């Protein structure tokens, strides 16, 4: 076994794991690793401007490639700044490995400079974490960390490496020599699969409800899903995290479901008689009121994580396994049994769905004077739709929901958004990670001005590495979603939901050495967007939009899927006292 220092082991292990990019920020406790990075060319280090940015960038990299994202930060504040990103990756099942420096082993527990109990702090926000106290164990731990991050339900892991372990010499272990007892099952039990196929054959009002698990399972899972949908003719809806697994242009597509999902998608979920959950987790943004959630349906649930089954909604047909493997088996069994569906019933089910589609739930009042945020996204979609290399990131809030509603995703891994944790400040660093992974691609971060400001320091990163990320900011000078809830729930008392001192975004862009574009008039919008698209470099696009636009449709907290609000006229006094305690 080759002998080398711990710091060198880190770099060697990254190379052996096929890592080409690391997002990080140096500091005292990781200097030996940075020294090794300096002395090689195989791994590119991207200097972010804040550790939270490093982790979100690694998430964007991971989500857009299907590979494991990597971040490297120092001890103490470096580690605590990474906590939000780790939690975000845990909630959305994004595979990342975060390396943290730690004070030397002999100083642990002495309240040393920049010491924090990193494994203690990050234990609940990682899938697993390790404090490595011996150099001999380091390489094995790193390989196991990658294995755990990508196996089963993916997630973030953290490896905490004290500085003396980085300096000391030990034996290197290769990935092949790594042994881990962590081997989650990927094949679903055939009994459940047969039960599901039997239910599909008889279903009169079926619906596929898919989620981020399809994306995580890999491109093959998306292909199998498409095959299954086309073969059965069942309608399909998806969560925010699952957009792109089935193409938005497909005729079986109902659009996103949930709190701000499409009317036809939510009504189909409510009225269906067979719900086939594929890699989604019955999140509260999806279910609304539990006791009124799809009351008459038989529910099947395919998930690789056994704890997702029966966590929120009782399942009739549970199937624990990887989405790709299970879909393959479902198709096999369904074909072998004669490709049966109830075509007559399906035709009348589709007729009902077409009736719901006619409601045209995304319609809004257009304006010639001000730019409606929906209009801005419709134009962005129209002008970029043909780009197959288009990646969309978002921050969190109204703009995120409008982007999910008005932009169409044809392929998996082209949509990066913070779903479970709802992290404002996610989108900009994520777009940097995506652009690093796809240097020639068109990467757009649809943002609100408030979210965007939370990690605006990453403009430095974008400019330094010449990453032509497009920051498309829907600027309503408000915390739009907070403002909307205050209007609906809190008697229009807009407590701290606007900013009185926003920067001039064009000047801000110029201050960083980037391009800024301001657009205030709907008539100028197309030209401005084209200017953004043709500029070869990072752009901040300041799109001043209608300030008081609300995001519809909306299922208010504590309401059922068939109690959607479709527009402003229906919003008065709609959320009762019990509903208002929910978020």
């Amino acid at each position, binding site marked *: 076994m080759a002998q080398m220092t711990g710091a060198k082991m880190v770099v060697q292990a990254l190379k052996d794991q096929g890592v080409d990019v690391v997002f990080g920020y140096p500091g005292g406790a990781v200097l030996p690793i940075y020294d090794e990075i300096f002395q090689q060319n195989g791994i590119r280090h991207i200097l972010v401007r804040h550790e939270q940015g490093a982790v979100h960038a690694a998430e964007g990299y991971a989500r857009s490639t299907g590979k494991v994202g990597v971040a490297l930060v120092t001890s103490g504040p470096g580690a605590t700044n990474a906590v939000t990103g780790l939690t975000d990756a845990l909630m959305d099942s994004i595979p990342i490995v975060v390396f943290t420096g730690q004070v030397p082993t002999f100083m642990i527990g002495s309240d040393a400079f920049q010491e924090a109990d990193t494994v203690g702090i990050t234990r609940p926000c990682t*899938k697993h974490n390790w404090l490595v106290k011996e150099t001999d164990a380091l390489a094995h731990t790193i390989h196991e960390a990658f294995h755990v991050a990508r196996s089963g339900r993916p997630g973030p892991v953290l490896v905490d490496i004290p500085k003396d372990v980085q300096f000391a010499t030990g034996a290197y272990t290769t990935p092949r020599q790594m042994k881990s007892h962590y081997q989650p099952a990927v094949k679903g039990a055939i009994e459940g699969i047969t039960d599901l196929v039997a239910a599909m054959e008889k279903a009169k009002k079926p619906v596929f409800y898919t989620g981020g698990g399809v994306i995580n399972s890999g491109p093959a899972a998306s292909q199998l899903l498409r095959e299954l949908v086309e073969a059965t003719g069942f309608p399909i809806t998806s969560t925010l995290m699952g957009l792109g697994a089935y193409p938005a242009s497909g005729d079986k597509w109902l659009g996103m479901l949930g709190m701000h999902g499409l009317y036809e998608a939510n009504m189909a979920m409510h009225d269906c008689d067979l719900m086939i959950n594929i890699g989604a987790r019955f999140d509260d943004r999806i*279910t609304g009121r539990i006791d009124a959630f799809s009351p008459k349906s038989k529910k099947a649930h395919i998930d690789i*994580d056994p704890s997702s089954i029966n966590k929120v909604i009782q399942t009739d047909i549970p199937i624990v396994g990887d989405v790709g493997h299970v879909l393959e088996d479902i198709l096999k069994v369904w074909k072998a049994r004669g490709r049966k569906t109830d075509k007559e019933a399906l035709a009348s089910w589709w007729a009902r769905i077409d009736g719901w589609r006619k409601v045209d739930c995304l319609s809004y009042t257009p304006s010639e004077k001000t730019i409606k945020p929906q209009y801005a996204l419709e134009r962005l979609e129209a002008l970029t739709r043909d780009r197959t290399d288009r990646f969309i990131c978002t921050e969190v809030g109204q703009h995120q929901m409008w982007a999910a509603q008005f932009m169409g995703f044809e392929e998996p891994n082209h949509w990066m958004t913070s779903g479970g944790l709802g992290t404002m400040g996610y989108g900009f660093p994520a777009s940097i990670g995506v652009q690093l992974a796809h240097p020639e691609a068109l990467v757009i971060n649809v943002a609100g001005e408030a979210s965007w400001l939370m990690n605006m320091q990453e403009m430095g990163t974008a400019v330094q590495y010449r990453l032509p990320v497009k920051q498309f900011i829907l600027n309503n000078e408000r915390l739009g979603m907070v403002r909307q809830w205050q209007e609906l729930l809190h008697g229009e008392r807009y407590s701290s939901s606007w900013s009185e001192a926003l920067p001039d975004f064009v000047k801000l862009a110029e201050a960083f050495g980037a391009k800024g574009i301001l657009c205030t008039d709907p008539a100028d919008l197309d030209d401005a967007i084209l200017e953004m698209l043709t500029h070869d470099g990072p752009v901040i696009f300041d799109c001043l939009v209608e300030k008081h636009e609300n995001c519809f449709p909306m299922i208010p907290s504590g309401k059922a899927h068939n109690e959607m609000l479709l527009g402003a006229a229906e919003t008065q006094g709609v959320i009762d006292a019990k509903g208002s305690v929910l978020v």
Partner: protein
Amino acid sequence: MSPLKIKKGSTSHSAYNLRPTFSDTQERHTLAVLVENEPGVLARVIGLFSGRGYNIESLTVAEVDHTGHTSRITIVTTGTPQVINQITAQLGRIVSVHEVHDLTVEGRSVERELALFKVTGRGEDRVEALRLADVFRANVVDSTLESFVFEITGTPEKIDAFADLMRPIGLVEMARTGVAALSRGAA
């Protein structure tokens, strides 16, 4: 101010406090969890219970395989059947957990707990304490002219009963180990 169009028959309850499809009966289960004996593993298990709001009635842990570095954690918990299922599933996905067994559902099992009782007093109370200890097969492991320390082994219920009887006689301090449990039979 147009009125809200809510369908007939709809109620307006909170989304979170109504789970009619799940049973409400509280059950007491004993779980045996085999874990990798590594730093922080107990914190992972306890953090799961506190983070997700599950109950711990008792918890014991010790290394049971010194060569394989595995420890056995025995947890007594209460909850609805759905919560108990969640607990076993959540424990099972901790990376350092090798096996989770719900001894309460997997067949008959035997449960034992050890406790130490300090009882102080003089005269007739001392005689009565010794008499009760004899009935419960508790041993005296320390004694002075004014005190005894009893050692008792049994089910938690037996130890509770012993404590109830000793309290009026002069029980001043008690230490309990929590439950250790094994399945009955060869398997």
